[in-house]
């Protein structure tokens, strides 16, 4: 059994407001560029003997002690149809089946609400006993739940069709926010390059998302996309690129990875630890008092960061010669 550990302590990001953040980011990126190395470490997995099943840990909420897992059976080709979504409590082996054919899901902070994306590219809400509560919109992917559980943000997909690629490129698409109180869907971005909401701001007036929108340097309108962290003001719909703002570095291939939805957030919301993949390693994103991103740098190879001592140390996993090595790392 393969176990991919990705612990989530989803917290909201405070607002970015300074007009100078772009310049600061650019400067920081230049400073950091000399130390950016894309490690070639393998994906962190734990082999527990059964190669026919893969378990992906999607989300862990320390406050509720609940963990969301997807159990994938069969070959990699069959994984395209998703797996069984289950929930378990810390310290317990028993698991509760939530739904089948699930691609991804998010768990509310209190561990009571689950937003799941299934292989038919639908988003459905479940409670923690597996009871289906409702469907959200027509087609969508990669849902996240707002801190107050009033909103679901997701990758809006076209209303007709079934193939993920085509649904992603056929309008309407972009990022949508569904208000569970008013029962209305608000399409907040309309670019087919916007693919994954990451987090709401504290006051839920802004949403952070990942996008491959064309980079400024394009030839004859040609698209040169780089996945970056973006922000949309949910009132004005204004979007802003937050990472990879230095054109020269990006053209040289020096890029900051996206901030993963499963990032670890410090209790003061000033530090996020993210591991989007083993190639990029583990990155640290630092925010100032206003929630402005002021630093982004790689701090280690490996994957699967989780707090071993909240705000002070993380435990990470690195696979060396087939052996998974765990180590602690200070993030102070």
């Amino acid at each position: 059994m393969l176990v991919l550990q990705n612990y989530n302590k989803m917290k909201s990001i405070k607002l970015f407001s300074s007009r100078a953040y772009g310049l600061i980011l650019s400067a920081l990126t230049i400073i950091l560029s000399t130390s950016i190395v894309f490690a070639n470490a393998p994906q962190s997995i734990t082999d527990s003997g059964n190669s026919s099943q893969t378990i992906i840990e999607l989300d862990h909420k320390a406050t509720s002690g609940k963990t969301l897992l997807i159990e994938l059976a069969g070959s990699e080709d069959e994984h395209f149809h998703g797996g069984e979504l289950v929930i378990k409590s810390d310290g317990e082996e028993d698991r509760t089946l939530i739904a089948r054919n699930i691609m991804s899901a998010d768990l509310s902070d209190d561990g009571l609400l689950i937003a799941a994306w299934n292989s038919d590219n639908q988003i459905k809400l479940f409670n923690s006993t597996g009871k289906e509560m409702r469907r959200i919109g027509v087609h969508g992917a990669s849902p996240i739940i707002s801190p107050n559980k009033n909103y679901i943000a997701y990758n809006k997909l076209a209303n007709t069709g079934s193939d993920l690629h085509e649904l992603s490129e056929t309008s309407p698409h972009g990022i949508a926010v569904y208000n569970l109180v008013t029962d209305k869907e608000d399409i907040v971005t309309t670019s087919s390059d916007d693919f994954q909401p990451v987090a709401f701001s504290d006051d839920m007036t802004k949403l952070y998302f990942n996008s491959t929108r064309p980079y400024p340097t394009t030839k004859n309108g040609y698209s040169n996309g780089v996945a970056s962290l973006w922000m949309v003001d949910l009132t004005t719909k204004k979007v802003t690129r937050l990472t990879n703002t230095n054109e020269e570095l990006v053209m040289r291939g020096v890029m900051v990875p996206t901030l993963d939805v499963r990032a670890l957030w410090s209790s003061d919301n000033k530090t996020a630890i993210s591991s989007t993949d083993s190639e990029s390693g583990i990155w640290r994103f630092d925010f100032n008092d206003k929630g402005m991103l002021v630093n982004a740098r790689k701090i280690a190879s490996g994957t699967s960061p989780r707090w071993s001592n909240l705000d002070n140390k993380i435990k990470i996993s690195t696979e060396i010669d087939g052996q998974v090595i765990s180590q602690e790392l200070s993030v102070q």
Partner: protein
Amino acid sequence: MLLTFFFVSVQSSFAQSVVRYRLPLSSLSTINAWYDHDSSSAERRYDGYTAWDYPKNIHSGTDFPKSSGTSIYAGAHGELYYRIDNCPNAGSINSTCGGGFGNQVRIKHLDNKVTVYAHMKLGTPVGLQSILCGAKVGGVGSSGSATGNHLHFELWSSTSIGTRIDPFSGTYSQPTSYWVNQNSGFPSTSCQ
């Protein structure tokens, strides 16, 4: 006789205008998914062979499994007009980065058809440029909606994803192969 000449001329003109493609890899050992001609049930490839036996497989490309970083080459001359890089490289079923294609390049060819090279390894897609048949366009990866290293190759009739076609010829596909040499299902590396 005049009619015969007309048909020969048309046929000749058609043959010159259609771009055909080389294998976008240096060698081919196996293909593990083809363009699906039977989306309502099991996958039925160009010659009618039912390749997979689980339902609802809707696959509109050809999957060539290869190890990470294996070079990918342009199938024909053209303009590399679309490029996405920096999608997370981890194989995942839950990534819609790049519309699920992950890191990718798209090349528009002389007949305005487009070839798509998807799920590339992070940091390998080459820049926007005019490109020759056989030029390297990137490396095999597992970015986007993928769970293992492979090249996902698609052929479109235009720059719209809604115009996807099967490059193979056969009973369940079109009569004319878009490969330079289909070679009984294992396309050759020869350029047109």
